């Protein structure tokens, strides 16, 4: 395993959300986006002029609106700034966080604002997902359907460098220790492989924990905000993410280990089954995990101190994003050469 070290440390210093609802006729897309951006700026104690770059994400095919980042710029504040657009399905929000992490860690930008949004009520999500399959070999045979709830809403997060954190932040910074993305072409006959591929969640967790020297993830993490679009998937997925064997995950469930006062609380936010504005959904996982670390999760703050948090994103075609958030900037870089 090669050494994993970031070029620079990156902190989450601002978090903003809208309300999430299946009825947002009172706001257009620009207004909804701006609400999240304004909330994130207020949380960070920054002004839009302090932002060096914007990363915008949604699934444009779901609303049937092309290049929404362009007219959303009134709401994102991207006018006159560098901007990137990210569209990676269900994982969009988590990919936004990964992109912002990389943009800041690289040193390209000091402070980056990422905004994930969706207005699923306006669009035809299943129609959009159906077009995910390879048109030559699979689209006639299989269709996609949205397996979760559908919501309207937006989430914005602000990321900055360690150098800028040292100059002071309004709220305690939450550090992005590491992130990983694993995906594969999800098809009936498995386009690439002669063998059954490793579950992407398992591959992501195994690789991420190994390169960060985390031997026992259940013991190490204090909370897990998991992208779980359907309630019954969570149980199987917990086995993959925590590298458990056999029915260990079921025994843990029965023992209450995943409860909010258990060994490793899962989704105190209510998770994706509570709200699913797709472009924001996977960003809400690290956003909520970061709020838990800060102690700012309000009514759903878990009781024990949260120092190490895990957050995941999920999307077609079995695309997994997994990231580790830390309260303290005190972890050891691990070299497994």
């Amino acid at each position, binding site marked *: 395993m090669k050494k994993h070290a970031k070029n620079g440390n990156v902190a989450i210093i601002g978090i903003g959300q809208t309300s999430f609802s299946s009825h947002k*006729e*009172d*706001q257009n897309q620009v207004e909804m986006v*701006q609400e999240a951006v304004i909330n994130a700026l207020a949380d960070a104690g920054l002004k839009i002029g302090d932002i060096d770059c914007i990363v915008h994400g949604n699934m444009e095919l779901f*609303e*049937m609106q092309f290049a929404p980042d362009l007219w959303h710029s*009134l709401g994102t504040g991207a006018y006159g700034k560098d901007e990137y657009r990210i569209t990676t399905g269900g994982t969009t929000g988590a990919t936004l966080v990964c992109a912002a992490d990389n943009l800041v860690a690289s040193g390209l930008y000091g402070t980056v604002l990422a905004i994930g949004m969706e207005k699923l009520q*306006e*669009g035809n999500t299943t*129609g959009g997902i159906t077009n995910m399959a390879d048109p030559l070999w699979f689209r006639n045979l299989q269709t996609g359907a949205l397996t979760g709830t559908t919501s309207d809403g937006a989430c914005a997060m602000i990321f900055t460098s360690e150098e800028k954190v040292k100059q002071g932040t309004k709220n305690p910074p939450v550090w992005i220790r590491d992130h990983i993305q694993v995906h594969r072409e999800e098809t009936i006959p498995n386009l690439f492989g002669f063998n059954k591929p490793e579950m992407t969640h398992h591959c992501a967790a195994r690789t991420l924990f190994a390169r960060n020297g985390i031997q026992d993830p259940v013991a190490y993490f204090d909370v897990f905000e998991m992208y779980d679009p359907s309630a019954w998937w969570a149980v199987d997925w917990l086995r993959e993410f925590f590298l458990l064997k056999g029915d260990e995950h079921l025994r843990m469930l029965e023992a209450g280990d995943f409860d909010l006062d258990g060994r490793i609380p899962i989704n105190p936010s209510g998770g994706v089954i509570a709200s699913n504005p797709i472009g924001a959904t996977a960003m809400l996982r690290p956003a909520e995990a970061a709020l838990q670390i800060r102690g700012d999760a309000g009514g759903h703050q878990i009781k024990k101190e949260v120092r190490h948090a895990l957050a995941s994103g999920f999307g077609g075609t079995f695309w997994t994003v997994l990231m580790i958030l830390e309260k303290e900037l005190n972890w050891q870089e691990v070299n497994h050469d």
Partner: protein
Amino acid sequence: MTMQEDHKDCFVLEGKMALPNQYFAGRLGSRFLIAIRDRKKIMGLKCNQCGKTFVPPREYCEKCWTKIADNWVELGTEGELVNFTVVRYGDRHLPKKPPYILGQIRLDGADTPLVHIVEGIDPREVESGIRVKAVFAAKTTNTIMDIDHFEPV
């Protein structure tokens, strides 16, 4: 030199996407449209801090990010054609038969232009700087087409 591609025995799959969708005008956008529909008035939102009046409506001043959602001002229904292009191709989704003029009209009292169709002048003779006035639609649809077009004063 002419390239000769060989597509003998190469199949093409025909697809057709038809995905119904909506777009919410929002509370401000709806109020803007209602003023046009019911009162034949065009309203803008003014930032007192920057002294700029925006149309179509927006919740926040784009310059200083002050919330201006409640600061409605009535604009003139006349203004200056500040820019234009001539649409010369026809398609089913287009609102008029080509050729027609698509203009940017800065209404009296506004600082930003409104995009709309300009009629009543030959596309070969139109010039930036002419005065135009709104002609409201006889049949309303709760869209920006409740202004049917602008024409020279």
